[in-house]
Structure formats: C-alpha cells, structure tokens
C-alpha cells in the first residue's frame, strides 16, 4: 500500500519556494555593494521564507494521512529520479523550526561576523534552503542530494569563521558525517535496485526481506547516528560546536542534529520495521549510554559551549530512546524533544554567543556572575536552562516526560536507567545557570545588557518554549496521525531477542 499523496492545496509551490528562494538569493549576494545592505537583504529574505512557510501549518489538513503539499515533477526518468516534495506531521514541524531559525541566525551574526560578511551570509542562506530540502524531499536520492550538499557550506562556516581550532573541527565534522553517509548511499542504491525508483512512496510499499532490512537498518543507522549524534560517534559534536561561530552552532544544534532523528523515523522505522523491532534493544542501550555519558561529560566542562554540546548528546539520547521504545508515547516524546531541544539549545547557544561578544571568552570562570550585570540575559538564561533540564511548565518537560513514559511502558528497568540522566541534566544546567548568574567571582565589572536585536532573537524562542510547555496540543495533533501510521507498520509481537536477530541475519549471509 503506497501512502497517499495529497497535492499542493495552494496555487503556488510553497515547498519549492522556501527551498530555492534562499538558495537563489545567495547567488545574488555578490551583486550587493556593501555588507550592511547584504545583512538587511538576508534578513528580509529569511523573514519572507518564514512567512511563506506559515501556510504549511495553517493549511495543513489534520484529517489526512499520507503526505500533503506534494509537488511532483519528472526529473531524470531514465535513472528513476523524481522531483518529489511533500510533508507530513513529522517533517512539517521540522521545516517550521528551520524557517524560524532563518532570521534568527542572520540576526545573531549581525556584529559577530566581521570578515567576508557576504560570503558568510551566502553560506547561511544556502544551508537554510538545503535543510528545508532535506525535510521536504520524498525522493530518497533528492534527500541524499540535500543531505550531502549541506556539508560544504557547513564546512566553510566552521572553517572560515570559526575559533582557533576551526580547521580541525571542520574537517572532523565533514569526515565523520561523510563516513556515515557513504553507507546511506549504499543503502539507497540497494533500495533502488529493489524498487527501480528512488521515489519514497514506492519504496515504502515494498516488502523487504528481514535480512535486507537488517543490513538496511545498520547502513541507515551509520549515517543518522553520526548526525544525531549517538554514542560512540558523538566526538565531532563538541569540537564543531565550540569552534563554530554562533550561527553555525545554532544551526548545528537546532536543525542539523534533528536530521538524524528525522532520518531514523522516516527511514529506519518506516522502511525496516522488522529490523527496528529486532535491533531496538541495541538502540535503547546506546541511547541510555548517551543520556548518562553525555550528562556526566557535560557536568565536567568549564567551556560553556562544550557544556551545552554534551548536553545535546544527552538530550538527543532521550529522543532516540523515545523512538526505539516503539511506543506511541515514546515517539510523541521524541518528536517533541526534537522540537524543544531545537528551541532550547538554539537559545542557549545564542546566549553563549552574546556572552562571547562581550567577554571574548567561553570559560565559565571568566563569565561568572555576568547575570548580575545583565539582568535580561540572566532571565533568558534561566528560562532556557530550566527548559533544558525539563522543568515542568517548559516545553522540554512534556517531551522528556513522554519519552520516559514510553520507556516505563516498555520495561520499568529501561525507564529506571534513564532517570539518572534527567537528574544529571538538572545538575549540569543549574551549575551553568548559577555560575553565570550569581557567582561573585567574575572579573568583568561592566557589561552592556541585551540590546534590541538580541531581544528579537530570543523572545520568539522563549515564547514558544512557554507555550509548548503548557499547551503542546498544536504540535501533538499535527504529528499524531503520522506517528500512528508509522507505528502501524511495525510487526506485532515485539521484543525479539537482539542476539537471535543478529544470528539469523548473519546466518542468512554466510551460507
């Protein structure tokens, strides 16, 4: 059964436009005479994209299953490629998250970037379009095109405008990512040879053999685990986060990491359901390691950005845990966690960047007590920290709570293992918050509080975190049909022993 494709309800091709408007806009940047005009131009462009993306939510039909806003054009028939875009309840929130961060990353680079400004803005606009493309593509090769095309602009963003060890961080980022995604390429070619097309709806309707699913799952996992990043392939993340400019960190944390979990939902769960059930124990173990290990590492950091980076590992661990409990609540929680982590950690990186612009340091000790000098900064830091540790009333609480519910529903021991992670989150976030806000030992005597531009960056994030903390229904109602459809694909009778599954698969390969 192929999922139903619902054509675009609007007169204009919204998805194509929000993908290619920023990318095309990047090409025009060299024509703009000075840097200030270029910044204004980029801001207006990303704002326009944000406005254009709003109908994706308002015109989204909750009663429909399958994909909406579909745009389908022949691309390269002889190779089995179609230009196929469409969204469902899983990808739509991700796209909105991406377009929301568009203007924010331009604004936060306003004074931060001082050299080669137009080239930087071009990179920002390119990544903006490409990331929407990743979430909107329904042709798996089109997905891969976008997935990989992101590498070079991100590489440049870190390598040219990053900190002192930027080359190391950028090269590590690209090599890790590509090392994973070459297996994604293998998987996609393998799928093509089965389906004779790269079209995702057709591939979804295939029934793949358990052996093929097993290898497919592992190959896809290799690509997505690096992006998420899961333990033990997370080591690129702290390096990249620390060295990247603020905008780069925000893009990495808020959107790029979500491509990994999005891939798990869109590809692993949907295309290899049997293998997902078989390998779920492995994924759960890796997730719990990520939650606890990430938390412990985060606790030990003195670099603000590194602390937040390791906390991302732990938070994304909750998301993967939620997905592979294979329960409805768990998956709801994972989706919410993805969105909320995007909002929260994006906000924290923005704050870290603002602090860096004032003190030129990311050390906790140097920046201690800054909250006394900058009350508004302290307020936002408090809010984002609380959300990051999943304090009730903030958005992350709902997500993490649902993930844990799923875990407990699966097996109380799984849930019990994840609980210390939640406690650790409180420990490391409070450490950050207390040190930066109330510690007296800071050596900085005066600092300008947040200016208007910085307020504009933070307010939307803060507002959304509060709203979703009390009222997550707008998100849940959008994602529920898609998640139900996804979980309905899983074979019944879950809980196969992983060792048995591995042995079966190996036996089927080795005659």
């Amino acid at each position, binding site marked *: 059964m192929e999922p139903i494709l619902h054509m675009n309800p609007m007169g204009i091709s919204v998805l194509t436009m929000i993908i290619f408007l920023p990318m095309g806009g990047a090409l025009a940047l060299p024509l703009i005479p000075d840097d200030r005009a270029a910044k204004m131009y980029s801001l207006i462009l990303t704002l326009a994209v944000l406005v254009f993306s709003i109908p994706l939510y308002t015109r989204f039909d909750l009663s429909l299953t399958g994909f909406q806003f579909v745009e389908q054009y022949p691309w*390269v*028939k002889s190779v089995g490629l179609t230009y196929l875009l469409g969204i469902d309840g899983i990808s739509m929130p991700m796209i909105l998250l991406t377009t929301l961060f568009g203007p924010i990353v331009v604004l936060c680079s306003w004074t931060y970037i001082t050299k*080669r400004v137009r080239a930087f803005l071009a990179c920002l606009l390119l990544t903006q379009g490409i990331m929407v493309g990743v979430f909107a593509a329904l042709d798996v090769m089109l997905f891969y095109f976008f997935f990989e095309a992101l590498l*070079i602009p991100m590489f440049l963003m870190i390598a040219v405008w990053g900190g002192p060890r930027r080359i190391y961080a950028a090269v590590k980022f690209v090599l890790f990512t*590509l*090392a994973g995604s070459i297996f994604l390429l293998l998987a996609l070619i393998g799928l093509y*040879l089965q389906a004779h097309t790269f079209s995702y709806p057709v591939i979804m309707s295939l029934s793949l053999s358990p052996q093929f699913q097993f290898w497919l799952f592992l190959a896809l996992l290799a690509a997505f685990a690096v992006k998420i990043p899961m333990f033990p392939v997370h080591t690129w993340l702290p390096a990249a986060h620390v060295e990247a400019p603020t905008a780069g960190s925000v893009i990495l944390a808020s959107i790029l990491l979500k491509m990994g979990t999005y891939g798990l939902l869109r590809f692993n769960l949907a295309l290899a359901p049997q293998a997902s059930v078989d390998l779920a124990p492995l994924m759960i173990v890796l997730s719990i390691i990520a939650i606890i290990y990430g938390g412990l590492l985060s606790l030990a950091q003195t670099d603000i950005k590194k602390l937040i980076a390791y906390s991302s590992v732990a938070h994304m661990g909750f998301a993967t845990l939620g997905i592979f409990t294979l329960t409805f609540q768990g998956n709801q929680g994972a989706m919410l966690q993805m969105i909320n982590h995007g909002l929260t950690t994006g906000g924290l990186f923005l704050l870290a960047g603002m602090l860096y612009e004032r003190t030129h340091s990311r050390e906790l000790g140097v920046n201690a007590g800054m909250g006394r000098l900058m009350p508004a900064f302290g307020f936002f830091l408090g809010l984002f920290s609380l959300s990051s540790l999943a304090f009730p009333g903030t958005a992350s609480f709902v997500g993490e709570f649902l993930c844990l519910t799923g875990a407990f529903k699966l097996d109380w021991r799984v849930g019990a293992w994840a609980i210390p992670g939640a406690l650790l989150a409180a420990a490391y976030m409070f450490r950050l918050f207390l040190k930066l806000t109330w510690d007296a030992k800071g050596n900085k005597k005066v600092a300008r509080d947040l200016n208007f531009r910085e307020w504009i960056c933070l307010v939307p994030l803060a507002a959304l975190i509060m709203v979703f903390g009390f009222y997550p229904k707008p998100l849940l109602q959008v994602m529920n049909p898609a998640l139900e459809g996804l979980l309905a694909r899983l074979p019944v009778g879950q809980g196969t022993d992983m060792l048995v599954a591995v042995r079966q698969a190996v036996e089927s390969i080795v005659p």
Partner: protein
Amino acid sequence: MDTLQAILPELVLGCAAAFFFGCSLFNVEKNMHRYAVAWAAAVFLAAVIGMSGQAEFFHGAYRVDRFSRFFSLFITGAFLVVMIITQRMEDIDRNCRADLYFFLTVSTSGLILVTGATELLTLFIALEISSYPLYIITSYRKGLGFQFEAAAKYLVFGVVSTALMIYGISYLYGALGSTFLSDIVVALPSHLYDPLTLVGVILFMAGLLYKLAAFPFHFWAPDVYSGAAVEVVAFAASLPKLAAVALFARVGGVFMDFDVLAPALAILAVLSMTVGNLLALAQTELKRLLAYSAVSHAGYILLGVLAASQGGLNSAMFYGAVYAVMSLAAFLVAVQMAEEGKNDIPLDDLKGLWHRAPLLAIVFTIALVSLAGLPPTAGFTGKLLLLTAAWKAGWFWTVVFGVLNSLLGLFVYLNIIRISLVDDQASGRPVPTSPLLGTTATALGLGLLVLGVFPGGLLTMARKALAALLYIVPLT
C-alpha cells in the same frame, strides 16, 4: 556531400594542423593564441555540425557514427578549452608555440581517429598519432631539465605499452583470422577458452589500461604531470581519457565475455581507486596530486566497463565526459597559479585564492567537490550511476570499495579546498583573469552543476551513441 559533412571535424583539424605547421615553418609568433582559439572553435563547430554524420571509410576500418561523434564533440570541446587556457604559457618559449599548437592539434585528431576506428590496426595507428605528439611536447618546458626525464619516461612507458598492444593484436589476428572488430565479435564466442586468444586480449587490454592510466600502468602519470608544462598536462589529463573510455566502450564490451577478465578488471579498478587516492593524500604539489587523482578516477571508470551488461558503459561514458570537464576546470585554475620558471605548483601557492581571484576560487571549489564526488555536482551523479550499474551487475564488493574511496577522496580534496578558500593570508601575486578565461571557467563550473542535477540529456546522448556501436547495429 554527406560523407564530407561526416568527416568535417577531421578535415578541419587537418587544416588547423597544416596552418600551425606553416606558422612554425615561417616562424610566426604574433597572435598565436588567437589563431589557436579560432581554429579550435572552428573544429568544435565542425564537430557540432557533424554530430549526426554517418559514413564508413577504408572498407569499414574507420567509421563515423553517433558513437564516434559523441566523443568527437567532447574531445573537440575539451580541445577548445585547452586552447583557451594556453593564453599565458610562460613556461614555453615563444618560438615554440606554433609547434606546440601543431602537436596538440595532431594529437587531437589522433584521438578522434581512435574513437572511430573499428579495425585493430587502424586503432593502433590512431593511438600512435595521438601519443607521439605528447611525448614531444612534454619536453617543451623552459629551463631545469626535469621535463626531459618526464618525456623519456612517458616515451618508454608508452612504447612498451604500444608493443604489448601490437603483440596482443598479432595474437588476436593469429587466433581469430581478422583484425576487424565486426569479424572478431562473430569469431570470439567459439574461442572463449582458447589460451592464445586470451593472451591476445590481455595484452591488448594492458595497452588500453595504460591509456587510461589505471593501476598498475599509472607509473608514468605523476612524473609526466609534474615534469611537463601545466598547459600540456591539462591536455594530457583530459582528452586521452575520453578516447580511452571510447576504446573501452567499443572493444571492452566485446572482450568482457572472458570469465577471467572481469574479476581481474574488478581488482584493478579497486586498486586504482585506492592506490590513487592514498598516494594523492601524500602529495604536496597540485599537479602530482591531480595525476594520482586521475588514477583513482580511472578506477571508477573501470567499474562501468565491468558492468558493461548493465548499462555500465553508458555510465562510464557519462563519467568520462564529466571527468574531462572537472579536470579541465581544475587545470584552468592550476594554469593561472603556475609561476614562470617554477617547476611545480605547491599546494601552499593556492593560499588565499579566495582573495586573489574569487571567481576562480569558486570554480575551483566546484571542480574539487565534483572530483570528491559530493552532490549536487556531476562527479557525484556519475559515481552514483557507476556504482548502481556495478552493483546491478553483481560486483557488490567493488561498490563498497567505491564508496569507501569517496571518503578517502574527500580527505584529499577537502585539504585543497581548505587551502584555497579558508586560509586568509592574501600572500602571492594577484591572479590575472582575462574575460575569455573567466567565461570559460564559469561555463565549466556551471556545467558541472547542471550535469550533476540534470544528467538526463547527456545520458540520453550516451545511450544513443552506444546504440550505434558496430557490433549492435550495422550502418544503414
């Protein structure tokens, strides 16, 4: 008249060669570059006009059809680009330039003859016509003396491989009783287990691998690349590759029926990719690096030959054409970076390219990303097609090595991208870019992106060209 139209590219090339020969005789030095570009444009135009030409010459030994014209188009196009980038040629004496253009033209005509030859001896002669001029112009560089070593190496390797090839042809003739491909196709199935034929085929294939600079016949490449003038290398790196792909497509398909040949080619393909990339990693000089990168790309092209039965030839032709474009784009920039009297282009000389010539830096980056095989460039699309075909034909393990190698490749090219785009020192002289060069660079860069995203047109062209192969369709 049709016949005349069909061989128009060959005729114009002949005229061009005669013109440059005349220039050389009468020591014309002025405006040589303009003449060269004009003649190359004329040749390219002739190839466009002659696109649909069909004719047979010398009792079927030389054939003009869609297949050979597909390659003529790209070879003459590449020829035009090479002529455009020979603008400065600081490394070559002014009074040698006419000779240089003469030899380049002759070599090009040899390559075009290669793509149309359907008889082994004709093929052999065409190969020699294309190779000899290159042996000579490799030594055309001013000063130093390393160029003579390079030329000597090129000559020795070339002659040995030629000897192997003609030796193989003699075996084939002895075993099959003909040197016409059309006869060989008919006679071959009954000789599949005949050792004499097999020896002939292997020796012949060795000659082809040399042309492609695949492992283990690649040893000449790095020295020739670093010894010769950049402009000459730009030619030697791109055009003969196209002819080699044509050869593999035309005769490789015939010989792939031998059971032992395919595994051997698979191993050579994987070794080519891996050795090429690993050695490229260690290079600090751009030309040598590109030489090893050529070796690794030869490996990818071999994958297509391996999967001849599954649309692999089609992909190999696509990749061959794409490779020519990306290597020309890379060399176009390399030529601009080359400094007079220096023997090589250390990677450090590329520092600050972004500040010195933004347009060239962008084109260079596109070329390198394409060489590394990342989307949305043509290098990725070509690799995707080759790997798919190889997997379809059952060579899964070569596909695994193929993707692993793209990781190695990325490491190689990322380093150059870093040096040229990231490093801030605006050291070094500003890079001069004439409007003609700028346009050519832009066209090559855009071409790589367009072919990457819309490979359909070129693929259809390649498929139609393949359909015209002698052993499939007789001329009407």
